[in-house]
């Protein structure tokens, strides 16, 4: 018998390498599915909250040994792209987080399980995710309202009492926000905005964070001016009240120079927050979603109420729900998990670390306790919702419409497109894109 040739050994070697690599892949992909258990998956986009969910779901499995829930974290940047393909392909998770901006399309196409509302759930979140009189998800988190973070040291240097911040108003004869923001804006020579010789090209400290920021800034201004941003799946921001709000913001940036230029903030949502954390911004209007970041600030800080506008103090509020996949292979088990996630016990895990506010009201105590333990009064974020408030916008085609309006808003905040023309063109473009 002749010996195999080198070329045969060579070919066998290539095949062996391929087999070894594939065997490694098989080993990596081995499933550790426990016998007799129904395994469900929950998809969300936040790593920090995922850890809290794992604790909550471990407690659920301890009480319900026949069900195991695995948490699947997908980055926010691609979350809704991959969710769409997975839902369309019938391979989405049994339960997934969904936001107000995207849920309408899924609800309308019958992709979500209807949910019976509970009186213990945050009403604003229930309203946000109710469409055609049906609730389409179990409220999980709420952002509460928007408030004003302040740098106590910079206020002291300007001789401002933090208690006065709660009385701030804009767009009224007694406008106090603009003069204060200018007083808190300082150039490299130490001159304040509005003083003779003030150099707007060399500012070392900003007064306020007026910017092209939907949730933190302009929705609150529109609401406080009595205007609307959207209604019934259509963009409606081309109205006189919204124009008043945008005029005020654009002037703060480009005329008064009391806020960073739009060139720095239009495409960098972190810019204002980082300026505040660096001690280069006195007032930073934002939500609880930035509380954990602000808590790391190396200076004394506090939280004050949102400034009042011509129509009062109207904050935006937002929420996230856990939606049940209507195509799940385990509808009964999915409903049991959803019921747990909407319970006080199941939901309270999410607030224990102070990073997120549970949307089950009886579970919110842990969040308040966490921040009270650190000496932070989070009251202004909640008190602002006692009055009228706006829900974060959403609806069919919202995401496409919002993408379409951005270039017009960018130009408007840069001061290159007059506010009335920008609003008119942006609304037209947004509604056209949303209708496609």
């Amino acid at each position, binding site marked *: 018998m002749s010996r195999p*040739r*080198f*070329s*045969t050994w*060579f*070919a066998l070697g*290539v095949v062996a*390498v*391929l087999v070894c*690599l*594939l065997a*490694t*892949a*098989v080993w*990596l*992909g081995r499933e550790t599915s426990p016998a007799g258990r129904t395994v469900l*998956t929950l*998809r969300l*986009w*936040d*790593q920090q909250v995922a850890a809290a969910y794992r604790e909550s779901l471990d407690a659920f499995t301890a009480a319900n040994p026949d069900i195991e829930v695995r948490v*699947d*974290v*997908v*980055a*926010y*940047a*691609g979350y809704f*792209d*991959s969710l769409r*393909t*997975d839902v369309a*392909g*019938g*391979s989405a*998770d049994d339960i997934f987080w969904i936001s107000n901006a995207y849920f309408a399309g899924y609800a309308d196409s019958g992709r979500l399980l209807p949910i019976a509302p509970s009186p213990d759930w945050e009403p604003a979140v229930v309203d946000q995710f109710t469409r055609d009189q049906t609730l389409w998800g179990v409220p999980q988190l709420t952002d509460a309202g928007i408030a004003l973070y302040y740098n106590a040291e910079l206020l002291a240097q300007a001789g401002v009492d933090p208690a006065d911040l709660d009385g701030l108003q804009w767009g009224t004869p007694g406008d106090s926000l603009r003069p204060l923001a200018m007083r808190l804006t300082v150039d490299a020579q130490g001159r304040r905005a509005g003083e003779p010789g003030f150099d707007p090209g060399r500012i070392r400290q900003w007064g306020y964070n007026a910017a092209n920021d939907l949730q933190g800034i302009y929705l609150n201004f529109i609401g406080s001016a009595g205007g609307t941003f959207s209604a019934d799946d259509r963009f409606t921001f081309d109205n006189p009240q919204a124009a008043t709000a945008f005029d005020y913001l654009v002037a703060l940036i480009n005329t008064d120079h009391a806020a960073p230029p739009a060139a720095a903030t239009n495409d960098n*949502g*972190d810019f204002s*927050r*980082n300026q505040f*954390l*660096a*001690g280069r911004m006195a007032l930073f209007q934002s939500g609880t*979603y*930035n509380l954990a*970041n602000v808590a*790391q600030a*190396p200076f004394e800080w506090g939280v004050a109420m949102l400034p009042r506008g011509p129509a009062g103090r109207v904050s935006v509020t937002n929420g996230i729900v856990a939606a049940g996949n209507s195509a799940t292979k385990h509808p009964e088990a999915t409903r049991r998990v959803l019921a747990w996630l909407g319970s006080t016990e199941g939901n309270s895990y999410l607030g224990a670390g102070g990073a997120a506010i549970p949307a089950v009201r009886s579970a919110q105590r842990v969040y308040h306790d966490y921040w009270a333990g650190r000496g932070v009064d989070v009251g202004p974020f909640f008190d602002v919702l006692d009055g009228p408030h706006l829900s974060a916008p959403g609806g069919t085609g919202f995401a496409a419409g919002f993408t379409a309006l951005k270039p017009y808003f960018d130009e408007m905040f840069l001061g290159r497109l007059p506010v009335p023309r920008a609003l008119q063109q942006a609304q037209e473009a947004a509604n056209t894109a949303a209708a496609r």
Partner: protein
Amino acid sequence: MTSPRSWLVYLGLVVGAVITLAPFSLGLLTSVTSASQFATGSPLSWPDPPTLENYSGLAGFGFGRALVVTALMTAVILVGQLTFSVLAAYAFARLEFPGRDTLFWVYIATLMVPATVTVVPLYLMMAQLGLRNTFWALVLPFVFGSPYAIFLLREHFRAIPRDLERAARIDGANTLDVLVHVVLPSSRPILVTLALITVVTQWNSFMWPLVITSGSQWRVLTVATAGLQSQYNAQWTLVMAATTIAIVPLLVLFLAFQRHITRSIVVTGLK
């Protein structure tokens, strides 16, 4: 003495080097800067003190597994692409069979179809086969060679003198012997070029893994890096640590095969 013209050339090269290296240096610098310093200081400030917390922080995001999955995916596709492309290219270059050239040009014509156009049909195929979110879905569309690789190899194989092959056949060599003993040894530069192109392409691939996988089980480096950016936090220090790690294997490859890369630019006309 160095002429003024040489000085200008050197100046141009130095400027080119600075422009090329600056983004990498900034990335490296950011990766050893603490998140709080990055948020409060200038992006160009020197890390004070330098920290490895961003690198250790990556472990919490499943970055180690993503590294293994990416390496495995790249290795499988590399072995598959080289093997199947060599076999196909040799068949198109040397074997005689009816319709050979028509088949070849039809296959090459698929080069004109943009990759993005095939994403949806490929996704549907994988979903129907039940392969979504599996390792097989990551590698199957690319493991059986590519028109570009086959075209490149076929042209090279055709340039190898037939007399060499005939001499081997007279010595009793079969087709596999000819391939292993004659064709492959004389095609080393083009094979290295192809290997490098394949490794770089697959190591950096983002679109297909993003679409076909979900969750952490088969997440690749690029998708994991994108995943570091949350809704309200860009986490640039973590992202820069991740990209620094992701680029190391490519740098090693570049240093090891610099000569071949330079040559590959000549061979393929790629820049």
